[in-house]
């Protein structure tokens, strides 16, 4: 209840930052922390690519950012309001403004494509409209338009689990388009599509985002895409940010550090001797304090 004024206050005050993370950490059970001590400011309209090896904590970070997973410690401030103190209603309101595409798309397989796409509207619809729409689909034109934008115009009435993996991922993308969120989080949105299509989808995401003034945070395994389309690139490894740069500032050495080193296959093992082995590369490397580029291509 006391958060409402805080939000409006924030709108006037810190409009530049839509998202601020302070020492954000997540630990599952007694494992090594999956995300540790991330501090980050995200300006409105920025397009950020997050790259890093498997197990670096990208998915965990995204799930905290879309308010699905509570952090172990640290804080998330979305549009000026600290999310930890939000009540259920405000939580819903904030979630509505954050659109997510999950790595494994996580659609409801037994629903038709159109309902999965229209579920992007669930944050805005009152419950009765949500239920009515299952019987008599509402906003059908918008759903069709979103599907057309991702090249799936003919799949509107198909059952979702009858689509291929890449097609399902595009359905997830269409859902986010329909949600019309301020911040879009996409975790590996092109993991299961061919390179050509991956290129098109990332471009679509970035251009749509830029036209509508959305903030974009996208994790990618494809470094080339990250460097080509985004205004800022974050390297994430073992739950920590190793660099935070404009794409043209990313050096091969930084990438080698990010992916290489003494990583045990499938494991997470950056330890003390790693730092001594690579004294040239103190972590994290920060070439920050840059201006958001006018056009980044």
């Amino acid at each position, binding site marked *: 209840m006391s958060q409402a004024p805080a939000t409006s206050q924030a709108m006037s005050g810190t409009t530049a930052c839509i998202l601020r993370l302070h020492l954000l950490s997540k630990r599952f059970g007694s494992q090594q922390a999956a995300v540790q001590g991330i501090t980050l400011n995200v300006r409105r309209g920025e397009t950020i690519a997050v790259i890093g090896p498997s197990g670096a904590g990208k998915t965990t970070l995204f*799930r905290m950012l*879309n*308010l*699905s*997973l*509570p952090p172990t410690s640290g804080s998330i401030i979305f549009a000026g309001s600290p999310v930890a103190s939000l009540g*259920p209603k405000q*939580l*819903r*309101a*904030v*979630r*509505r*403004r*954050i*659109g*997510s595409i*999950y790595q*494994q798309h*996580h*659609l*409801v*397989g*037994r*629903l038709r494509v159109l*309902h999965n796409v229209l*579920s*992007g*509207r*669930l*944050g*805005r*619809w009152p*419950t009765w409209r*949500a*239920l009515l729409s*299952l019987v008599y689909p509402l906003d059908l034109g918008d759903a069709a338009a979103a599907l057309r934008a991702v090249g799936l115009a003919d799949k509107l009435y198909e059952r979702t689990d009858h689509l291929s993996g890449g097609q399902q991922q595009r359905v*997830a993308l269409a*859902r986010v388009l329909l*949600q019309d969120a301020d911040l879009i989080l996409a975790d590996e949105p092109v993991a299961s599509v061919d390179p050509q299509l991956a290129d098109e989808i990332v471009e679509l995401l970035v251009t749509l985002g830029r036209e509508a003034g959305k903030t974009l945070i996208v994790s990618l395994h494809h470094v080339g895409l990250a460097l080509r389309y985004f205004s800022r690139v974050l390297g994430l490894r073992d739950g920590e940010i190793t660099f935070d740069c404009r794409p043209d500032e990313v050096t091969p050495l930084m990438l080698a550090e990010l992916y290489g080193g003494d990583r*045990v296959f499938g*494991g*997470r*093992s950056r330890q003390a001797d790693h730092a001594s082995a690579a004294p040239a590369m103190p972590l994290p490397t920060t070439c920050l304090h840059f201006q958001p580029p006018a056009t980044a291509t």
Partner: protein
Amino acid sequence: MSSAPLDPQHPRQPLPYLKLLLALVAFGAAWRLTEMQPSALFAAEGRRNMLAFIGGMFPPDLSVDFLQRMLGPLLTTIQLSIAGMVLAILIGLALALPAARTLRFAGVLHEVALRRRRRWLLAVLPYAGARGLLNLLRAVPELVWALIFVRAVGLGAFPGVLAIGVAYGGILGKIYAEIIEGVAPQPLETLQSTGAGKLAVFCYGIVPQALPHAVSYTLYRWECAIRASAVLGFVGAGGIGQEIELSMRMFNFHEVMTLLMMVFGLVAITDLISAAVRRRLR
């Protein structure tokens, strides 16, 4: 990784065969305590009685007169099982919703929101109550429920409906709750992340995933209800069961055979229906 045991697939398990041993001991004890005597089945006396019974069943009584008289009880049994199942589904749903952990306080729908203590208690209390009630409904056998309701409302099909409704309501409620809890959580997380409310997440995420399992299990229970209604007839709850009991008491074993064939036919028909429904639901 470094601090984990060398072989994480096989955490220390001192006696891998302990469970098997325990199961064998339990089986042995059960054999002794229930005074199992398979040989009694084949002893002269038992064999003679059984042969008389089975022999008496042939040929089944297929006279038009008898069949016509049994048409009423047959319909009663069908109606009893359907009305009982409708009641059971209503009870089951009403109790499954509070009894499903993932709808109340656990899992992805509550990760972030439910940290305040009072709210947590408010969610757990109905859960405990519903689980307790479900256990109570299931602990009492349907035959005992039938006896109770015959006392309460008199002879006839109505106590049978109540008995099946209450006993099967307990079973369905537990299964429904378990099906709801077993649904894949990731699509629910996705739906929730769009800002969807609880009811919308339920209808878009849980219902589509749970429906096929719930329907198929309910149909199986319907089949059980038809068989159960035959037994419930023995205590005066109407239908074919009552006729079986009467014919048994009159030593009209060939009529018993006809009636059993009717039950068999009913069960076979429900099986066909549920197979067809399951095919459509896939």
